[in-house]
């Protein structure tokens, strides 16, 4: 029996057998794996609400096909707090009051966690803000999110 194609989601192997070929990662996460912490916004790659980490990099799950991820590793907001950087980001958002309705929040938390790990906390603040420019928030006006970025950079391991 040949090994079924799999990807890893939050550390667990997920078989791609039976997943229709054009299925988006977003739908795989939300409807097959019941990981609905990853939010569905525009489904056209414009809002960032569905951001997850693929091999550590912030990725729009609405524009990513599940079958393209064979052998790769996906992390979602549900597991982000298991990571010390993710935990620091969550705490920073909480302490900066950087959330209101909370719908964009998982996308921001995941994206910032990925950026901190990729760029390192000493990368210039503008770099973080520029990369988060693709995540939309309609409630906060972003200033509290920018404060959370500052706090997270101070606190990240």
């Amino acid at each position, binding site marked *: 029996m040949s090994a079924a194609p799999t990807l890893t989601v939050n550390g667990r192997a997920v078989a791609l057998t039976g997943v229709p070929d054009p299925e988006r990662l977003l739908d795989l996460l939300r409807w097959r794996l019941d990981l*609905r912490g*990853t*939010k569905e*916004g525009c489904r*056209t790659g414009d809002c960032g609400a569905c951001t997850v980490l693929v091999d550590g990099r912030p990725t729009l799950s609405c524009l990513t096909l599940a079958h393209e991820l064979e052998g790769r590793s996906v992390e979602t907001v*549900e597991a982000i707090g298991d990571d010390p950087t993710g935990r620091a980001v969550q705490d920073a958002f909480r302490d900066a009051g950087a959330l209101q309705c909370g719908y964009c929040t998982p996308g921001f938390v995941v994206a910032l966690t990925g950026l901190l790990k990729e760029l390192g906390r000493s990368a210039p603040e503008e770099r973080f803000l520029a990369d988060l420019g693709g995540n939309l928030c309609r409630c906060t006006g*972003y200033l509290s999110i920018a404060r959370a970025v500052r706090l997270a950079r101070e606190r990240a391991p």
Partner: protein
Amino acid sequence: MSATARPDAAEKLRGGLVYGTDLVAPRMRWGALVLAPPLAGRITGVDLTEARSLPGVVAIGAADVAGLVGGATGDAERPPFPVDAIAYPFQPVAAVAAPTLAAARAAAARVRVTVEAAPLVTDLESVFPDWPGPDARDACLAAHVRARFGDVDRLLASAETVVRETYRTPGIHQVALEPHACLAEAHGDRWIVRTSTQSPFGVREDAASILGVPETSIDVDGTWVGGGFGGKGASFLEPYALLLARAAGVPVRLALTYREEFLLGRSTLPAVIRFETGVSGGRIVARRVRLLLDVGTSLPGRDFATGYSIGFLLGPYRAPAFEVEGYAVRTHKPPFGPHRAPFAPQCAFAVESHLDEVARAAGRDPIEFRADHLWTEGDRTPLGQPIGPFGLPAAMAAARRTATAWRARCPPGHGVGVGVGFWSTGTGAGGEARLRLTPDALLIEQGEREIGSGSVLVGLAAVAERRTGLARDRIRVEYRSTATAPFDSGVFGSRTTAALGRAVDEAASALLADLARRLGSEGTVRLRGDRGEIEVVGTAARRTVRELATPAERAGPGILAVGKHYGARGTIDETRVEAGEFYPYHDFTGAAHVAQVDVDRETGAVRVERYAAFHDVGTVIDRSSALAQVEGGIVMGLGTALTEEAIWGPDGRLQNPGLLDYRIPTLLEVPPIEIELLEGYPGDGPFGAKGLGEPPIVPVPATIAAAVRDACGAHLTELPLTPERVARALKSA
């Protein structure tokens, strides 16, 4: 920085909460709307046969509604599906449910809809190219309002200076990140829907009216709401989902795509505003204001927008004589819907920009001129509504000082502007509160869900904390569906903490009075929770809640207290009203803002460099939530000011139904914002609070426009202030 984290922060940060879009149920089917072609006109056929032949598919249209509701007749003027004619492009004409979303979409695509196309009218100004006459009685009108006092014609004719201007404002969308979504079930004569809404009771009332079933047969349970901003205030998808669930016999989930949000959502629509203002001796002697408001397919006699919105063109400035007239014009668009502070930012933009122009024409300093005419406490509005404690003059004075300081250090070519706006805290149909005091916690039972602002979870708890003395960590909001929740009219109108909070405050006061009696204590008692179980502390005695509760209360739900606040409506001097209904504002509040901008003279691009806001809040109930409302409202207003515009093409179709072409502000465009909350002008809310959800967006477009004019002389009379418009105005300046 916030000392106390919001109670919903931890779950929101780990993606643990269920929003409307996250709803699922066993045996659930997926719904999809069948959209009409992008036309208007008489329906000649909706053929569901092919869709129904697909495995597991249920399809319903107008002909099926009566059977599904057991012969009941709903509101004939707004059936769930259109019977005779398509009123606007893509109007839902049928709905399907299937085992998967893909199957539902495929089935919807197989429904054949034929329409005898009529001319599509989506350009407001093409309806009345010559402005409606005073006796216009046209099928295209949904409402006509008119009020006046004083002899405006005579005063304008004799004024030293008269300025006539026309302003245009576009349609704008709410753009909550979460699309509308709900999940419905039907069992026997029960209709059950879980939905992402700003008003569970509003959905219940509306759905009952549309379906023709008793309100009590419908149970609405709110979910977490991924942003409302007015777009989730009334029923929308719920009647479709309920009918599908009835037809399918299993739960049905229905959600909009984001494209459908833009195409079908009820948003604020375009308007034309005309002013005639006369000045003599540097003072306004008469104002005439006329409004043409696109209300889409709002029903004649049911348009709320015109009589509500037009009041924002009447203030906040005094005039010895006034005439105001507004027409609600029907076009082939979805019905007008509220968008945070419905139409007030657009009105403030027009009023402020126009009065700047008037001041300049009269040779006066624009800010000083406006400050001289500002309403103050004790004044009456042009409709005779009394102005109570009103912090706007103080806010404007603070804004002027800030503007002067900024201007002194403003680089050449940059500009500083001041804008103001007022607001009337809504009460809606009122609200009721139910508190239960248990040995461990004070519970606030509510049907309203937290929509993000904090007005429910933080605001109501803060009111109870302030009244009872019990620390916030012992106070919890517990959600109930409409079957058991105390009534409340909805999270809108900046009313939640201010008006529903009054009901909570009344319930808390009743609870304390009850506890004082039980304690046998003279005077007031307070609650304390810092020594384990909650204690009731009087002047001479102290007992635990457990000790004061009866055996039944201890065994069951705790000590109960109720409160209600059905709100106050303002009064209108009806002798001044000649036609239509004006909304009676009351409990006035306001804000003055300052912006510094840089305008690129080649491209016309505007960059906002810094911003300051001074808000009359009555009383601060929770400081971090209040500041968050102001920050968020201002940035949303930057979108209204600079980029947001629904564009209908010459073919009558919406050209930009997506986030790429309908631009809302991003993290990269936000200036630093300084905020001052002004207390000391108490409102009708608990402890003198006034609403704060909507006021922050009101002055923003006006403020940016004033700053742009200060920077480069460009006087703009149309929103948004896109680079193209600014560049054009620069050329003609």
